[in-house]
């Protein structure tokens, strides 16, 4: 997911009896489906966990611009170029909405950015994989956005108001992203021999990294249990991963492509597909900054930030000059 392995607080979820009255009222409000707003009282752990989660989600959108941005200047038609540019632009917008949501919790965008650039905060593992052919633009839209949507749709009901509202806006805008990806995949899968080969290759490379997006099984995780009690996490990782596989396998069949999993098969009894787990060692390596493109991504973000410093400072200095001129004229 765009937010992976979010640590929560405490060693276990408190029972109502263990909570003080303020905390109990807070939890009851969440249990009743109420929203928590910026000025409401909230446990410090709730606030800090949300900053980590929303911040990581925002960082993922921003770093996520890079693998697709990699193909904007090589898009094969004017229409494809416009669509891809609009999509990557939307990701910048989504990052912006999410940073703003995090800012309501008392952290600034610049602070979050510094933590991303120093490597203290993470972003989704998926964006550390390279995009090598035009079919990858299809696969990223179809699989990566498809996986993201699985998580983002339920998050529209998350307990924190500003986060829920950002997710509503994001989900509305995202709805075209997955479809544009599948549209590219259809063209490629039904195209020339080379195009079909690119489509299959893209699925081969993005299948397991997409499954990793949901994070390792968290059925026994205290963090996960606490985050679900707070409704800042709505489903377990396994639930979402299964849903993703069940939805995606028929789509791959429709495209005439083969999911790279010899053990993939429909389980009549469960009513779900059985599938192979991704390589979790690889996942932890990638999350730790050892993904195929991790160094490149961080370098690109750091360069953009450093190169832009004089612009941010210049416009601010001008705004201050204008203000003092206006005061002087009064």
């Amino acid at each position: 997911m765009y937010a992976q392995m979010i640590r929560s607080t405490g060693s276990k979820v408190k029972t109502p009896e263990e909570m003080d009255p303020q905390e109990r009222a807070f939890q009851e409000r969440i249990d009743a489906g109420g929203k928590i707003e910026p000025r409401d009282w909230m446990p410090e752990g709730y606030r800090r966990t949300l900053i980590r989660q929303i911040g990581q989600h925002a960082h993922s959108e921003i770093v996520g611009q890079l693998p697709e941005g990699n193909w904007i200047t090589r898009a094969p038609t004017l229409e494809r170029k416009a669509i891809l540019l609009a999509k990557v632009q939307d990701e910048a917008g989504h990052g912006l909405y999410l940073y703003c949501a995090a800012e309501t919790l008392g952290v600034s965008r610049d602070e979050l950015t510094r933590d991303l650039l120093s490597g203290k905060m993470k972003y989704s593992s998926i964006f550390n994989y390279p995009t090598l052919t035009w079919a990858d633009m299809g696969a990223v839209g179809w699989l990566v956005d498809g996986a993201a949507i699985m998580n983002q749709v339920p998050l529209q009901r998350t307990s924190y108001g500003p986060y829920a509202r950002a997710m509503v806006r994001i989900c509305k805008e995202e709805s075209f992203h997955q479809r544009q990806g599948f549209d590219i995949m259809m063209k490629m899968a039904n195209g020339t021999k080379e195009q079909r080969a690119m489509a299959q290759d893209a699925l081969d490379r993005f299948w397991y990294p997409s499954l990793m997006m949901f994070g390792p099984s968290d059925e026994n995780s205290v963090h996960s249990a606490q985050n679900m009690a707070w409704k800042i996490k709505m489903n377990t990782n396994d639930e979402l991963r299964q849903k993703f596989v069940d939805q995606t396998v028929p789509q791959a069949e429709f495209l005439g492509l083969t999911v790279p999993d010899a053990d993939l098969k429909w389980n009549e009894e469960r009513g779900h597909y059985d599938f192979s787990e991704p390589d979790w060692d690889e996942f932890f390596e990638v999350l730790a900054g050892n993904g195929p493109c991790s160094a490149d991504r961080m370098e690109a973000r750091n360069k953009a930030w450093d190169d832009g410093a004089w612009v941010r400072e210049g416009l601010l200095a001008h705004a201050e000059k204008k203000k003092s001129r206006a005061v002087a004229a009064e």
Partner: protein
Amino acid sequence: MQNEWPLWEVFIRGQHGLSHRHVGSLHAADAEGAIKNARDVYTRRNEGVSIWVVEARQIAASSPGDKGPFYEPANDKVYRHPGFFDIPDDAGAM
């Protein structure tokens, strides 16, 4: 960091004659910049005809509202909308 641009709240009036509505926030060096940024960030899908911005720290608040933003389709960027892509029914939900 001291030199972070201030945060602005953005209010947009749509084409249906409703009042300005809070749609989100952004950063800008000054009010003029905030209006232009709001135009670029929050009206990409033709959502509005009038923009108000106010620096976030100038707002006195009781409790924030709870309603999600409202969208209007853009006229000439149809590809932003899922209906632009003709996905066969056999492909399943998307």
